[in-house]
């Protein structure tokens, strides 16, 4: 009798705790990643996320650019995503249910403006009357218009067209465009076919226009599975550490993931800035929960710019952008 009761109790406890654990565990996690060179490819390739989340079905979805990612987020198709600062400013202003939790990468010369070397273009002023391409709504579209404004060149004096990165490469090979500001891996194809770099995104960062990609999580997911947000960050941090410690192996991974020759992958890696997770909480990046960092300033500057472009209805107060940046998860991961 006693034995039976005990057995029942044990089974009941086990069932209960299993139920409790099952409740906290998502059955599936979908990670949207951008088609560019950064440590997310390492995390994906080494299966670091799967190691952090055993028993969870992990799905990776590739997005060509920020516009596609934004649509995926708005459509609730991903749990985690990555966004450049212009799409982030759009998402934050439009009150998309997301939070920025991690610096994915800082953009240096992995993003550049390339011009036809036989067209004698030595400055932005020479672009008058030319056809210039950029994926609209992305970091490079933002930088292109900022750079033109700083040099006092009227954007209406040239033909600026909206093309996806892969279409830019195709249009370049056909000779349809004279200049383009976009990113690797397609950038390289253009440079090798009669292109030369005029300005890089890294140079624009030094002029006060940093561009970056930030990891975001859907609010609903973060509320339901906060510990899995930490697991995600932990996996991505491991990827970043691997990138910083093993550049050669990383280059091999990038080369394989993006089907590139090894020297190209190595060069593209160097053009991307990776920020180790324990530095992400400094003033320059996310900052801390108590005092948010300069990412907020970049977001406000970007949003302000987009409002002037009539792509956004109004500029939100600083507090809204501060609320979007959430260093709390990464603070927990690195134990601060």
């Amino acid at each position, binding site marked *: 009798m006693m034995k039976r009761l005990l057995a029942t109790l044990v089974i009941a406890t086990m069932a209960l705790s299993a139920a409790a654990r099952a409740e906290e565990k998502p059955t599936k996690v979908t990670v949207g990643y951008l088609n560019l060179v950064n440590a997310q490819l390492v995390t994906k390739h080494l299966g670091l996320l799967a190691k952090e989340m055993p028993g969870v079905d992990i799905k990776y979805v590739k997005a060509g650019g920020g516009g596609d990612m934004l649509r995926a987020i708005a459509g609730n198709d991903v749990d985690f995503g990555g966004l450049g600062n212009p799409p982030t400013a759009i998402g934050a202003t439009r009150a998309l249910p997301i939070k920025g939790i991690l610096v994915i990468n800082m953009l240096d010369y992995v993003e550049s403006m390339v011009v036809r070397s036989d067209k004698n273009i030595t400055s932005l002023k020479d672009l008058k009357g030319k056809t210039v391409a950029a994926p609209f709504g992305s970091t490079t579209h933002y930088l292109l218009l900022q750079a033109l404004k700083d040099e006092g060149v009227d954007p209406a004096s040239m033909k600026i067209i909206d093309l*996806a990165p892969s279409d830019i490469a195709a249009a370049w090979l056909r000779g349809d465009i004279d200049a383009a500001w976009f990113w690797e891996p397609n950038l390289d194809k253009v440079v090798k076919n009669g292109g030369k770099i005029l300005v890089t995104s890294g140079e624009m960062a030094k002029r006060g226009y940093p561009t970056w990609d930030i990891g975001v999580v859907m609010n609903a997911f973060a509320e339901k599975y906060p510990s899995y947000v930490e697991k995600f960050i932990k996996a991505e941090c491991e990827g970043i550490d691997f990138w910083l410690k093993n550049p050669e192996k990383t280059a091999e991974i990038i080369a394989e993931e993006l089907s590139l020759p090894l020297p190209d992958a190595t060069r593209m890696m160097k053009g991307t800035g990776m920020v180790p997770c324990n530095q992400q909480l400094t003033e320059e990046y996310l900052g801390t929960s108590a005092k948010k960092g300069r990412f907020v300033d970049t977001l406000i500057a970007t949003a302000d710019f987009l409002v002037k472009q009539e792509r956004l209805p109004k500029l939100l107060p600083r507090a809204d952008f501060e609320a979007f940046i959430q260093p709390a998860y990464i603070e927990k991961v690195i134990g601060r």
Partner: protein
Amino acid sequence: MSVEASPMEIPISVDRTQRGSLRLNIPKVSRSLLLSTVTVAVLLAAWAIVTEVGWANELFLAKPQTVWAAFVKTMTKGYQGATLPQHLGASLYRILTAFALACFIGIPLGVLMGVSRNARALLNPLIEFYRPLPPLGLYTLLVMWLGIGESSKLSLLFLAGLPGIVISTIQAVTSVDPVYVRAAQSLGATRRHLLFHVYLPAAGPLILAGMRISLGFTYTVLVAAEIVAASAGIGWMIWDAAKFLLSDVVIMGLIVLGFTGVVLDLMMRGIAKLLMPWA
């Protein structure tokens, strides 16, 4: 009032249980117009209520007044450098040019394939193969071949419109009563006579119906055609606004597209009546 006296007895007799004979005298056309108005009104009301109460996220479904404001703003100030009439003009130019091309090539091709078995056997594989291809898949290739300018956009719209016209023309021509053909031949008609006085007049109504469907199909491919490297056009405006999550502009653009589609279709019907009063 006697219902029997009304010339509209048949359509309204079903309605006898409804109130008053006054209503029964409403002619059939305005009755269906009334019903259609009810549908639109209910839809608009539902839209207004859902957005006002907050059941729908404004990010995906803007309020009717916001959409109206977007319409007014685009009419007067424009969206990204072009006003709504300019966007519409760019799109209509593309559609109508491509559609005219599709008719100029599709109708003669269809007649040829309808009259001659050999021509049909020769050309059918081509048309049957590309007809079911999704436009976007075709488009990437067109962009590689023809570039990012107008020619690739026009080609895509042309290719979308062509098969409908060809196939309906073939059907129209093959369904012409052979008695007409033989009668004309026995009266000494030449091939040219047969074409212009027998085949085309008899097949005309079906060809025009095919043209209408084909115009509709061309229209549906518009947004896809304007995704790549356009800087004006209703389709481009919708695509661009979607990137920036401007749902008011997106919805406004779709409504304008819808109305324009209806107007185009009415115009096609008008042309059909003018050209083929016997149909």
